[in-house]
């Protein structure tokens, strides 16, 4: 066992975790960052290109930016949080230019255009910055459970060094969960490290989740490939295999038409509405978008190709760990959440499109969570490492009965309920209830038996996390008896003004959902 201590432990090495680590270190904390994969390549951002919600600090522009998405999100976002994310994102993007020398493109007047980021370049530079800040980085070292002191405050975490094949623990004053959302191993670009682990850890510590009904994001990709870049499909036309146009299909509101058609027949696509200039711009915006086409000899602007929809769950859905304070604290002392692991309802409500808001939220919430965790740890006054602790992990690590393996079967059982379009995307009360009953059965079984030795603990815990995530999703989806944001109920297609409030979900063996107390929460 490798035993470490730190003021702040950051779990997760995507953008939110990287910013949290930098800002905690700059606040004077000693910091350990543990990532399931590799800080610099892990997660949904590193392999993609993304716009960023970067808006000049001009009142009219900011007002337009905030107003533009409120309706799409079902009016569940919060103006105070949007304003502070716009402020923080503006500051962080300028830091990327000035501190990390990120090579932004320039306009005709030589001014940098700071409204987008390319994942490989961004995250490579964030790794450099994290290390220069003195953070100890543990790659290939997933956290597997939290540690708590006698009062229930989070006091560190345990994990596993996969490449060294040995466990580790970090005693810490505070923990930031920046483990990403949950895409259920759908092989959507960069998302297979995102199995919702942080939400499971948080729930075991007693934290709450919010917005879990907003968890049915699906991205368009060429069939049999991983590369999702839904924005480019706004230039596409969709066809049936007989060559007729699939009416109503589109990359935005028309995605359910694609899903419904895919249930019974292939859907073909051609990106035939982009001008030559736009075609060139696409190649420059996300280089790997074209790799699957170029390597298969397909010209996506002139050839028809089959498409699929890949589940992005809460990676692009907005549900996640509920935020209780302006410093991205949760309801559990010592526990902070950032990025996709946290709910993004505060700035997006029940819908996000591409990366823009998500990228802004990751860097902003990471900044606040890092600083908040450093402040909390400092407040413990050096007592942090002396606290007696207990490990909080249950499902997948401490089964209630005789242990057995079998994580792969449990994963397959969960995927069978959350990946199909006719269960998760095209929702009805009956189908949700049946799927939830099946998921409850999977949970009972794995809760009773699942444990795997050595590095197997990582897969077992990921399986448990996905099962928990799916149950929270469908419990919340059944509780929201209307259509709002991305949560579309075919049996309840209207928005119900009485349900304009967020839903809080929690629990492990018994899952519950209730409306958030009071009106829309404010920032502080």
């Amino acid at each position: 066992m490798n035993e470490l201590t730190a003021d702040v432990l950051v779990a997760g090495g995507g953008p939110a975790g990287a910013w949290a680590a930098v800002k905690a270190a700059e606040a004077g904390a000693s910091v350990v960052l543990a990532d399931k994969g590799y800080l610099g390549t892990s997660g949904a951002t590193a392999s993609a290109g993304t716009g960023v919600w970067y808006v000049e600090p001009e009142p009219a522009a900011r007002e337009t930016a905030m107003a533009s998405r409120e309706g799409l999100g079902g009016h569940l976002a919060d103006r105070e949080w949007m304003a502070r994310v716009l402020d923080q994102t503006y500051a962080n993007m300028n830091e990327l230019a000035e501190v990390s020398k990120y090579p932004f493109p320039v306009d005709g007047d030589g001014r940098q255009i700071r409204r987008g980021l390319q994942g490989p370049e961004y995250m490579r530079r964030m790794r450099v910055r994290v290390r220069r800040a003195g953070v100890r980085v543990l790659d290939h070292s997933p956290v597997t459970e939290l540690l708590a002191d006698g009062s229930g405050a989070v006091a560190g975490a345990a994990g596993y060094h996969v490449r060294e094949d040995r466990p580790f623990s970090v005693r810490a004053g505070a923990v930031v969960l920046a483990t990403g959302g949950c895409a259920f191993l759908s092989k959507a670009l960069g998302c297979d490290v995102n199995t919702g682990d942080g939400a499971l850890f948080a729930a075991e510590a007693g934290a709450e989740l919010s917005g879990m009904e907003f968890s049915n994001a699906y991205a368009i990709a060429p069939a049999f490939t991983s590369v999702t870049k839904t924005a480019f499909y706004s230039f596409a036309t969709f066809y049936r295999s007989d060559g007729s146009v699939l009416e109503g299909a589109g990359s935005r509101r028309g995605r359910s038409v694609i899903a419904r058609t895919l249930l019974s027949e292939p859907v073909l696509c051609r990106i035939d509405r982009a001008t030559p200039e736009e075609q060139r711009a696409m190649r420059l915006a996300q280089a790997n978008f074209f790799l699957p086409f170029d390597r298969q000899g397909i010209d996506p602007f002139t050839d028809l190709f089959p498409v699929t929809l890949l589940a992005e769950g809460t990676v692009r859905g907005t549900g996640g760990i509920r935020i209780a304070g302006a410093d991205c604290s949760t309801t559990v002392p010592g526990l902070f959440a950032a990025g996709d692991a946290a709910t993004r309802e505060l700035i997006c409500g029940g819908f996000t499109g591409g990366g823009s808001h998500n990228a802004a939220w990751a860097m902003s919430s990471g900044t606040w969570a890092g600083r908040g965790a450093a402040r909390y740890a400092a407040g413990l006054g050096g007592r942090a490492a002396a606290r007696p602790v207990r490990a909080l992990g249950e499902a997948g690590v401490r089964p209630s009965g005789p242990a057995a393996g079998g994580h792969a079967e449990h994963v397959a059982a969960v995927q069978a309920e959350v990946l199909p379009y006719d269960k998760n995307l095209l929702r009805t009360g009956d189908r949700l209830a049946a799927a939830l009953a099946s998921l409850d059965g999977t949970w009972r079984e794995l809760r009773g038996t699942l444990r795997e030795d050595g590095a197997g603990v990582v897969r077992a815990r990921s399986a448990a996390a996905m099962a928990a995530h799916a149950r929270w999703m469908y419990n919340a989806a059944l509780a929201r008896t209307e259509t709002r944001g991305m949560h579309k109920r075919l049996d309840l297609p209207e928005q119900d003004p009485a349900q304009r409030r967020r839903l809080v979900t929690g629990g492990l063996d018994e899952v519950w959902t209730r409306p958030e107390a009071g009106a829309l929460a404010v920032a502080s």
Partner: protein
Amino acid sequence: MIEVVSADRCVQCDVCIKVCPTDVFDRGPDGLPAIARQGDCQTCFMCEAHCPTDALYVAPFSGPAPAGSPHTDEAALAGAFGEYRRIVGWGRGRTPGSRADRNHIFTERLRTAPRNP
């Protein structure tokens, strides 16, 4: 999925073993990176971007390429090695691809474009 590690190009620097976010590679007995857990490959192309000697080829499929596929044949793929790293703009004497980024065009278009019903 990752299909080819070129023994001719590889300098056994272990970078791919280190950077793979889903831990697909092990160091083989001959010192070359071995594709030990192909099923965990998420086809993110990050290993290709980071490989300093253009020794890796990720086939454009989320599953394994069928036996005999040209995507497993190093000789047939010569032109594809290093393609992604070149576009990302990494390696001596290259300009970062981010300098030519046009993502903001699409962000703007998505913000203003009419929606499908």
